[in-house]
């Protein structure tokens, strides 16, 4: 018996649909490394936010959603979600912070 998407069990969740404002970017974490990634122009993933695809185009957003869902189901990324952006940067403080990593890390002193 093959399952259609609507029959996916609740224990397999894919990213929520975007309800955001302004240009959207898609972010997630790599399953293996845990590191933050953003969806790129060619619908791949980059660890560098500078490569992120930002768009307000509904068709592109829908495609980003599909690609993210597929990436989660193929176990390459986890917890994909859309973020709002303003002037090219993530709108929320937390998301901006996530693009550049910790402001302090003891590793830098070693």
């Amino acid at each position, binding site marked *: *018996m093959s399952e259609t998407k609507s*029959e996916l*069990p609740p224990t397999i969740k894919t990213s929520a649909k975007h309800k955001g404002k302004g240009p959207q970017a898609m972010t997630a974490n790599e399953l293996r490394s845990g590191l933050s990634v953003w969806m790129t122009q060619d619908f791949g993933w980059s660890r560098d936010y500078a490569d992120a695809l930002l768009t307000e185009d509904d068709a592109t957003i829908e495609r980003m959603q599909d690609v993210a869902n597929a990436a989660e189901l193929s176990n390459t990324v986890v917890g994909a979600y859309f973020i709002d952006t303003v002037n090219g940067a993530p709108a929320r403080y937390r998301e901006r912070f996530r693009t550049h990593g910790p402001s302090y890390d003891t590793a830098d002193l070693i």
Partner: protein
Amino acid sequence: MPMLDLISSTGVAPNDVEPALFDAAVNQDIDALHLPNDADLSDYLDALPRVKSIFVDFPAFTDGRGFSLARLLRHRHGYEGLLVADGQLIPDQFAFALQCGFDAVRVKRSERERHTAEAWQAALDAFDVTYQRGYAVKAGPATSIFDARLTAAEANKTTDPFSA
């Protein structure tokens, strides 16, 4: 109604029984009782001797109330019929379910693509021991570590009469 499988320590069997909601007015044998995991067991006690099987609802695998209900049914209320964890459990919880008193779990057959019969059985083999007393089961963690230590200490005392 999705196709369902009953998984016990002895294997997997189809099971599409539709457990019935409890009706206190009905005074006859109950083949399969649906028990919500927030049930007040005192409502059910009079009927318990007439119940042949109980399906405890697990609305989510992270909702552990059913484990306590099973424990109470078995240890406090002496229920000896079939006890099934009915819902979303995953293999990694199988031993816990049996240790709390369940005989089996019931899951959607479609889930078995990911959670194979082998995975369910392997989960029972993951541990031979459990710390807690009173939660050891034959299939799964068969011994409480606290009890095993006592046994080992006793054996040490008796087997070697020449040890200091």
